[in-house]
């Protein structure tokens, strides 16, 4: 899926030595959640940010969404500083998909309202226009058109995540920032959402920033991967080379921690961990 190196590539999102600190109660020195991170997401690329909880991956993604201002360094969106965009302008280009589809949809709105919300923020579309766009998006995420009249609580977790994706796509953004898009879902549903995200990427020509701790999601959905630990990027590169030939000890640890379905191999991985208890 990687593009030929001969065509110049547009950079969709870029951070340059970006740092984010949070004040800590009762302490003079702040906590550095993200520490001088420089990353590039090229247009059409899918970049995964992996690391355990507390590694700073969500903080970094929130800065790339414009939801959090960096303490130092800057974030550029298609070559322009993120702070020069208005919220609406930015929302047309970069959209989030969150982890928990139970929390990210307004429980009191019907799904056509939920999905068309971004549309109505930018213009005053007619009722027919809204209906046809909502139906179009529902089709894209493989949900029946009849779902438009339903409420979020009538849907399963996987269906809700599809709705969240439809809402993110209705204004045809260029970049999706997906924070653990499948972690709250069952494995069989996870696989379906991964397939959907793969298909939509081609259909809409999207770039993805995928925040996850699931190495399986990384290898299914991404071209390249950046491994984060204690606010820093330890390693970055094409998925195939990082996963098969990790240069960093922590990356190796992260990879061996994924238990294979083979009982013998999984048992020996746990046995190895027993010796270090």
């Amino acid at each position, binding site marked *: 899926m*990687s593009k030929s190196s001969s065509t110049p590539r547009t950079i969709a999102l870029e951070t340059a030595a970006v740092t984010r600190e949070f004040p800590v109660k009762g302490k003079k020195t702040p906590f550095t959640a993200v520490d001088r991170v420089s990353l590039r997401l090229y247009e059409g690329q899918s970049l995964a940010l992996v690391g355990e909880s507390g590694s700073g991956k969500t903080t970094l993604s929130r800065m790339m969404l414009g939801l959090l201002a960096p303490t130092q360094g800057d974030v550029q969106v298609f070559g322009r500083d993120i702070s020069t965009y208005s919220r609406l302008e930015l929302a047309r280009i970069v959209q989030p998909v969150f982890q928990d589809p139970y929390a990210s949809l307004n429980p009191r709105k019907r799904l056509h309202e939920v999905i068309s919300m971004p549309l109505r923020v930018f213009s005053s579309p007619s009722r027919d226009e809204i209906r046809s766009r909502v139906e179009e998006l529902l089709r894209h995420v493989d949900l029946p058109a009849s779902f438009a009249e339903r409420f979020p609580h009538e849907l399963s977790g996987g269906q809700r995540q599809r709705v969240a994706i439809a809402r993110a796509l209705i204004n045809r953004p260029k970049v999706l920032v997906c924070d653990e898009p499948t972690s709250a879902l069952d494995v069989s549903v996870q696989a379906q959402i991964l397939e959907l995200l793969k298909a939509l990427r081609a259909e809409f020509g999207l770039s993805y920033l995928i925040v996850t701790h699931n190495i399986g999601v990384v290898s299914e959905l991404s071209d390249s991967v950046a491994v984060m630990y204690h606010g820093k990027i330890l390693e970055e590169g094409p998925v195939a080379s990082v996963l098969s030939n990790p240069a960093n000890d922590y990356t190796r640890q992260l990879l061996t921690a994924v238990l294979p379905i083979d009982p013998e191999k999984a048992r020996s991985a746990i046995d190895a961990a027993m010796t270090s208890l």
Partner: protein
Amino acid sequence: MQNILEITDLEIDIPMKDGILNAVRGVSFSIEKGKTLCLVGESGSGKSLTALSIIGLLPPKAIRRVSSAVFDGQEISRLGERSMQDLRGRAIGVIFQDPMMAFNPTMTIGRQLEEVYLRHIARDGRKAREKALDLLRKVGVTQPENRLSQYPHELSGGLRQRAMIAMALMCEPSLLIADEPTTALDVTMQVQVLALLRKIQCEFGVSILFITHDLGVVAGVADRVAVMKSGQIVESGGVNEILLAPQMDYTRALIAAIPKVRPLEDRAAVHAMTQRSEAAHV
């Protein structure tokens, strides 16, 4: 080999607004002494209800019918609440997914661990404290003396999970029910907690009923596996049979749904693949 637990024909109904939900339907299984049975399934398959029913912790409106439930040679299906309380925490320990929910946020870790001992074994505060310290040390909690006076929120997720395992072991139970004990943890921490559970099993000879939806975890901890779907066990057997040669379509689908990580051993193959795709672009 003797069984620590034998459940025959378990049914759980939950009355809903529009009828009755048959959440668990005719489930039977047994666990050998000192072994681990994994109950696998997706959310809503009834695996947690099945486990909770053993210790009498079903939601109040749930209706349970069971032909027999024999724990350590004793029929426990018709025990009253009082006798059930004696069993719970003493002979059967429980580890939940989210330690933040299982601990009382207003009590110190030490007090909560000691309480189990005081309630079940003896009203001897000094011994309870010794036991708590000993177990915190055994489960790998750093600075156990200090932890006793800390509150749950002061511990990291991994430490809290270890503290909960210690609490479940306070009365040296013969059966441990672990409901998704590592789902809330990071992968690197998950392997450590699984290794810890194995160590405990070796040391105390405890049997484990392990509930999970993660087949990698199953591969690592299970002796036997029962796959649940819509309230029924669709397939059960030894871990190798189920994971390497599954008979049922549903089990196969569950295995196929897992996103593939190219394992480290396949390094050469992947390397060849990337070189090929790079070559294609030249």
